[in-house]
């Protein structure tokens, strides 16, 4: 990982801040610290800052008048950053039902990886996953921390429709489909939790830097939670941790 990122224009209405390194929690810490600084900075026009694994994009509402000056200003701002060794975070508990009715590919993963279904569930619910960022679809979490033993390639032919809430694995990534959509991940369960609700502000309870843990639930619990969520009586379990 580079100590200081490369900061350069992207077209005429964005600036890219790129660490160009390997991905991991270290670089994410820096990325998120910079993100906060940039979000609190007053720019000459409206900007939006998003991050991915090891880079940030500052996109401006309209074209940047003085790109040269703007890039220098961003460099200066970030040079002064004091990156804290530790930061506060939240751990959200996301209930997931691993019943074979929802875990469409559990058997396939079991055969392919030579692991009992119980073992797969154990390995999938053990880690505390890190939310790197939200992208791809509204509310889709990019999570880090999948156990290597569960890494498996995507389906050769993607499913035409994967149900909202489906929990899947694709290579070294695991995640939840926020809505019905075509998808090629191997599906091992389903969560009743809404990852994106356009009528809520914010529309997603999660943000980059949060951590999540999957909690195995039975089919009965799944259906009763689904009802609670529908009636608006459900609140995600969350614990706060100081850095």
């Amino acid at each position, binding site marked *: 990982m580079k100590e200081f990122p490369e900061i350069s224009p992207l077209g005429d209405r964005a600036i890219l801040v*790129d660490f160009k390194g390997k991905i991991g929690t270290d670089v994410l810490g820096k990325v998120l610290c910079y993100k906060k600084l940039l979000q609190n900075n007053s720019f000459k026009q409206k900007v939006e800052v998003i991050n991915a*694994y090891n880079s940030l994009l500052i996109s401006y509402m309209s*074209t940047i008048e003085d790109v040269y000056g703007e890039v220098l200003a961003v460099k200066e701002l970030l040079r002064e950053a004091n990156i804290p060794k530790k930061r506060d975070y939240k751990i959200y508990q996301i209930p997931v039902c691993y019943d074979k009715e929802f875990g469409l590919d559990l058997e396939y993963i079991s055969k392919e990886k030579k692991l009992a279904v119980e073992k797969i569930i154990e390995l999938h619910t053990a880690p505390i996953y890190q939310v790197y960022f*939200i*992208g791809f679809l*509204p509310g889709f979490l990019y999570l880090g921390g999948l156990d290597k033993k569960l890494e498996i390639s995507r389906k050769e032919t993607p499913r035409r429709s994967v149900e909202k809430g489906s929990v899947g694995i694709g290579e070294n990534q695991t995640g939840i489909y926020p809505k019905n959509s075509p998808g090629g991940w191997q599906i091992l369960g389903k969560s009743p939790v809404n990852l994106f609700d*356009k009528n809520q502000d914010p529309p997603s309870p999660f943000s980059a830097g949060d951590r999540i843990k999957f909690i195995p639930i039975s089919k009965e619990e799944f259906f009763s939670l689904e009802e609670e969520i529908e009636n608006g009586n459900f609140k995600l379990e969350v614990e706060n941790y100081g850095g």
Partner: protein
Amino acid sequence: MGAEIEVLQPGIFSAIQDLGRFGYQKFGVPQSGVMDRYAMRICNLILGNAEDSAVLEITLQGPHLKFQAPTAICISGADLSPQLNGHAKALNMVIEIKAGDILKFGKRISGFRSYIGILGGFRTETLMNSQSWYEGLTSEFRLKKGMKLYYDSQSRKASETYSTVKQETTYLADTNIEVYPGPEFDQLTLKQKEQLLEQQWTTDESSNRMAIQLKEDLKNEQKPIITAPVMPGTVQLTPSGKIIILMRDCQTTGGYPRILQLSEKGIQVLSQKIPGSRISFKKKDYPDF
């Protein structure tokens, strides 16, 4: 007074758009917004609206619309032969509307996307700080027959004059797309760079508001990159050599090398190209740092 427009025919693809959603990309929500910001600005300026008032973006074949009450509109961008009650109307001019007037479109003369601005802007659903329609997010994503669009009926005072706005329409026929090098441009071989910038490319029929794909391939051995931010105008190169130019409704992150980045002018020009158009990339450079 609140008034409505009745959609008699929806056209091929028409949607309400403004400058798009800002502040929700961190939740994976696309920016959206008008494809051709210039045309939107012109029709709002001519009407004396705020520059970012919502407009109706129409594509190739326009809708048939019936106005319930008086107002004024302006049409900018592509020339799709607008007619009011059967009479041809000019672009980039105020068109006074009376109750019961019917607006239709005919043959395409130039460009691909046309914009209808209305006095005071359209009164449609605002979601996440924007009126832009986007499939799966807003309750509507394309104009449908029988649908109603709302506006505030107002007539201008006789003393008020519309501002004269200088516009240029030559970009509609321009085939040069202004680009900057993308973050992964330098990973291309010299030969690839040459081909990319010297060859003519053809826009594919599958193109839409999300992305414009090119028909020809750029032979490629580039591997995918670690998922990184993308934005409208980002040009991606897939492992099979397909060139994909992301447009306003694109995802917020992507995993293909970002070889070029269109300027806003580049997006404006490309937005007006019908599928099957021949284009070339004209590279601009960043200032030296």
